[in-house]
């Protein structure tokens, strides 16, 4: 005689929907707690100066060639586009000023953030993910070292320090790239170009957009460290952590930038964002 079995009823549409949104909310909640712990650990002793300097060197100094090259390219392309527009109004003399504003206020910080989220975000995600799946993070803990303090806080701090410095480098490289393009096309002189570029810029135009990249650094550092630190599933998990680090930190950066631009415009109505 066959035995009657009772199967659980299929989940309702509402139940499926709730389950599908619960996981991302849980993930985001985890990220927020991780970020809060990163802030707390950054201010706790012992300060890992050697590791912070090593990470700042790797994240900052070793990204410098990428930033300089990209800055030169972005500056020259921006200059050519700006010329094409301003030429119509006979305002070619405004090109250095327009370029300086575009670079310093938005293009420089955003492009730097996106480039670093690609280079450094992937690196942190892969490095910490690799350490997690090969038990190196457990090994650190077994040696009486707080792995979060040693690995995460140092990298987040290094990102926060490096981003503004790299943004300044990007701005100068961009202006230099713009100058090369202008000098080639119109023969504009170096003193005139830089006098025009910097003459109209105030500190309030420069400081807030550059300072906001500290937030970008924090986003890149925490997002990629969170994904790497919690990676699982062997080599595939490390690859996933690395890819998601780039994608998610870039998305967060772009979205938060909108909020920051509005916030800076509110705080500094004349110069500002």
């Amino acid at each position, binding site marked *: 005689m066959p035995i009657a079995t009772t199967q659980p009823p299929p989940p309702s549409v509402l139940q499926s929907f709730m389950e599908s949104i619960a996981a991302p909310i849980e993930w985001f909640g985890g990220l927020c707690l991780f970020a809060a712990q990163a802030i707390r650990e950054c201010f706790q002793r012992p300060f890992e100066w050697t590791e912070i300097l090593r990470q700042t060197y790797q994240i900052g100094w070793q990204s410098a060639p990428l930033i300089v090259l990209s800055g030169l390219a972005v500056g020259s392309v921006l200059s050519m586009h700006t010329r094409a527009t301003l030429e119509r109004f006979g305002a070619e003399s405004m090109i250095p000023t327009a370029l300086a504003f575009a670079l310093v206020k938005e293009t420089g910080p955003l492009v730097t953030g996106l480039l670093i989220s690609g280079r450094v975000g992937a690196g942190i995600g892969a490095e910490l993910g*690799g*350490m997690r799946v*090969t*038990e*190196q993070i*457990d*090994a*650190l*803990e*077994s*040696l*009486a*070292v*707080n*792995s*979060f*303090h040693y690995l995460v806080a140092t990298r987040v701090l290094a990102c926060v320090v490096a981003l503004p410095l790299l943004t300044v480098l990007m701005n100068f490289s961009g202006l230099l790239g713009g100058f090369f393009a202008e000098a080639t096309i119109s023969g504009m002189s170096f003193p005139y170009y830089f006098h025009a570029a910097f003459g109209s810029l105030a500190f309030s135009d420069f400081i807030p957009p550059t300072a906001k990249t500290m937030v970008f650094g924090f986003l890149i550092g925490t997002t990629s460290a969170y994904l790497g630190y919690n990676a699982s599933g062997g080599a595939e998990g490390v690859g996933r952590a690395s890819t998601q680090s780039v994608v998610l930190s870039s998305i967060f950066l772009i979205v938060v930038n909108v909020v920051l631009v509005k916030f800076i415009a509110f705080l500094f109505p004349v110069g500002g964002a």
Partner: protein
Amino acid sequence: MSDAITFNGVSKSFGPREVLKDISFAVPTGGAYVLLGRSGSGKSVTLKLICGLLKADAGAILVNGDDITGRDSNALAPIRKHIGFLFQSAALFDSLSVGENVAFPLRRHTNKPDGEIRDQATAILEKVGLAKEFQTMPGALSGGMRKRAGLARALAMEPAILLIDEPSAGLDPITSNEIDQLLIDLHTNQHATLVVVTHNIPSARRLATRLGFLDDGHLIAEGTPEELAHSEHDIVREFMKSQQAG
């Protein structure tokens, strides 16, 4: 003799999978306890619980009389300084040379000058036969060498308790015997408490003063190698009959 490690009714689950179910045992100070069991029976989880790398869901774990249950990383640090852990994969830090791996805990937890730390690291590496590999990066080592380097790092702080996960897994019998001999010497000369997880019965017989057998999350048998060889459980007797290494 007091107990170095005590498990009182410890349970641990990963999601719906219950890995350890109400486990209780004690390892006396200076004892050599070997945990046996089939793959996935919770042996490595037990080691990680002793070191506080995993948190128990229920029960209490005492290390040298201190209850470590629920302690965070900072609160565990003073206890972990007296524990050495050899991971199954050795878990050497990829970015540091073999010598710097061994020197790492000394740099973190002592105020000794650099020269003295290097000398001490070299002496420990010599003990495991790797003195010439001080500058070698972990990626360039063979499996057996990695294991010995991992053991050297675990020994750096002269721990009172040594946790060893699968010392002979993936190693040839000669290297496996060498590592066993190192552990026996350490146990005899430094009176360190050993907790070893292994599948290798000959190795377990050599090392253990007492064995425990985990099956399906329960500690089903405990005793000397001879007692386990005559256990009431078929699986334990079967296991103990095995002469196969690893």
